[in-house]
């Protein structure tokens, strides 16, 4: 595949790794924010190519992992409604609510359908005028324009039977929340390239300046991530704290202006509760007044919400990069991908699931010791 395969060249990757090894003189902790970056790191073994001193920490970059349990419960309640066709990205189906997940709703007869795009959900709404079609709109800023377009089109087409359960989250407030925590030990960030493709770089400059951390916007192929790490280490060694764009083939400084305009029209900024972290001010998106009629929260009524179950799950600490999955007493025993206690074990990008799938048994062998977690 063009613009994919060439960024997976093993020899080029090894060259970057060697360059990083020559460059690093001190230990550095770098946090990659996005689940897509984690996936690539673990799949290609990028962390194993890095020198001892560089540790990669997985951040809260998985919208699936951070969707509030209360929201998942709302989704489950809507999906269980016999009038509803509930459409969702595949990732959300196994995220646990207070006592079950969307897949269980499907098993009990709920019409839950996986879609590739909210625009597919729109097509389902057009094809099923007698049913209510609800789309579970989660995601970072990358997904905001397409979710916005779905609602925008629903309004233009007068599709009365379409609505969205919105739980968008935004990256910069999360980075700030992590950096402002006293326990934070992160020296530099790898920011999410596709989020920045939409939003641009500007929001990150004040963060880099205030907390004096370099922020590297990277793509998702191995060479992108390795170059991003190199550029980050180079800044750290030099004591700089700038925002740099590694992913220039996709990211422009202002992002995608059309997309930003669409987001601004359809959404408004709200506080949002991040599972495992808590509420972060101005960190979420909800439908604006002009599109409020398409808000599933307004269209459906909900039973009294169960308070989130207190559980052993330490995903909050993991999402903040403070603890490793192996430090969780339930890891691999009471909490597994089959019986997850929290979302970081369910999502394929969740730190716990990644560690369990790729590294759990290697923990016993020193050669396989991971510097990622």
């Amino acid at each position, binding site marked *: 595949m063009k613009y994919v395969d060439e960024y997976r060249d093993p020899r080029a990757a090894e060259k970057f790794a060697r360059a990083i090894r020559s460059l690093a003189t001190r230990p550095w902790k770098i946090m990659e924010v996005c689940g897509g970056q984690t996936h690539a790191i673990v799949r290609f073994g990028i962390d194993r190519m890095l020198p001892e001193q560089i540790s990669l920490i997985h951040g809260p970059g998985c919208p699936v992992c951070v969707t509030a349990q209360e929201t998942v419960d709302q989704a489950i309640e809507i999906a269980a409604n016999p009038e509803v066709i509930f459409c969702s990205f*595949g990732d959300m189906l196994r995220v646990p609510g207070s006592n079950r997940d969307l897949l269980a709703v499907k098993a009990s007869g709920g019409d839950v359908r996986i879609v590739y795009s909210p625009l597919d959900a729109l097509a389902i709404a057009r094809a099923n005028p007698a049913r209510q079609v609800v789309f579970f709109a989660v995601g970072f800023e990358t997904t905001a324009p397409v979710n916005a377009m779905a609602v925008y089109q629903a309004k233009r087409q007068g599709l009365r039977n379409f609505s969205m359960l919105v739980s968008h989250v935004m990256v910069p407030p999360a980075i700030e929340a992590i950096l402002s925590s006293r326990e934070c030990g992160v020296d530099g960030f790898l920011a999410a390239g596709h989020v920045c493709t939409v939003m641009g770089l500007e929001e990150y400059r004040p963060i880099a300046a205030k907390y004096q951390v370099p922020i590297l916007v990277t793509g998702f192929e191995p060479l992108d991530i390795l170059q991003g790490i190199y550029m980050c280490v180079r800044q750290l060694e030099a004591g700089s704290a700038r925002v740099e764009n590694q992913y220039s083939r996709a990211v422009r400084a202002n992002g995608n202006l059309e997309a930003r305009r669409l987001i601004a029209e359809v959404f408004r900024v709200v506080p949002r509760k991040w599972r495992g972290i808590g509420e972060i001010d101005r960190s979420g998106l909800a439908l604006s007044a002009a599109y409020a009629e398409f808000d599933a929260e307004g269209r459906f009524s909900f039973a009294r919400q169960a308070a989130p179950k207190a559980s052993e799950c330490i995903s909050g600490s993991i999402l903040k990069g403070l603890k490793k999955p192996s430090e969780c007493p339930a890891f691999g025993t009471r909490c597994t991908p089959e*019986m997850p206690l929290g979302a970081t074990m369910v999502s394929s990008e969740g730190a716990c699931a990644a560690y369990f799938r790729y590294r759990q048994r290697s923990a*016993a062998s020193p050669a396989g010791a991971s510097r990622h977690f």
Partner: protein
Amino acid sequence: MAQDFRLRCPLPAATGGTIQLAHGGGGRMMRSLIERLFLPAFSNGYLDAKHDSAVMRIGSGRIAFTTDTYVVSPLFFPGGDIGKLAVYGTVNDLAMAGARPSYLSAGFILEEGLPIETLESIVHSMREAAGIAGVELVTGDTKVVDRGKGDGVFINTAGIGLVGSEVEISPARVAPGDAVLLSGDVGRHGITIMSVREGLGFETSLESDCAPLWPPISALLEAGIEIHCLRDLTRGGLASALNEIATDAGVGISIEEAAVAKCEAVAAACEILGLDPLYVANEGRFAAFVAPRHAERALEILKTHETTASLIGTVGNRGPGLVEARGPFGHPRILDLLSGEQMPRIC
């Protein structure tokens, strides 16, 4: 090595005691259902061998006997239909025991309201497939269920075939040092089905790889290749098949990801949908575990049937039940059994 302490009850708590789709998905939950419910109930040497077909001594010969049920939706897809799958699937399970497939039975569960024309197409397809596979359909049954109780058509086929006297093919024979061969490129069936699914569909010229597998296996046997085990890849893909063998044979398996062939369309679809091709369904591919001295010759033979056949790895004694894949940069990752079906993702 770590105990399998993860599974504590027959059905994971999250299911609340009902059957989930994942129980049919070819992954961990299906295996758990089989091991915790079916095997203890019916335990005998044949079942416990856990191979694709049971091989039983009857009189002076050995017969392989197998059954499979087809519930695919949509009923028709590029490259095949439920009927073709029903014939080849069972024929292939016999071939995996080294048996020449001979006779099939077919049981149909039809939904009230199914157009007879549809059934006709399926039956014609089965006749054609049976002809190509060299088997006869000798007995059958038909039932009809109320509208809404079945996905149009469900087909169960059972098959028997004779196993040659020197043939001993089962997970028990797999040994450290064995070469692991793959009969062709992966993922065609699963991605083809995805391409026609509502909500995930896309345009492609890709077709299912649904095909009878006795010809290449017969060729291997005729050439005197020392085959220890065979396993056809179905739901759950290559990774699941390797996991089953690793666990049943009590060995470790190590493969090179780069050696597993994928055609362009399968690779692209997996990128877009966030799927791992090693877990995508196949219907015309198998893994062969052969004595290392025969690996090269076996590969030559397989390539005459499918040019994309490859040598993908070896059997070791590192960690019984462990399947490892060396990735594009040479770093190993563990190929675990998935808990349920692989879902397309956006993350």
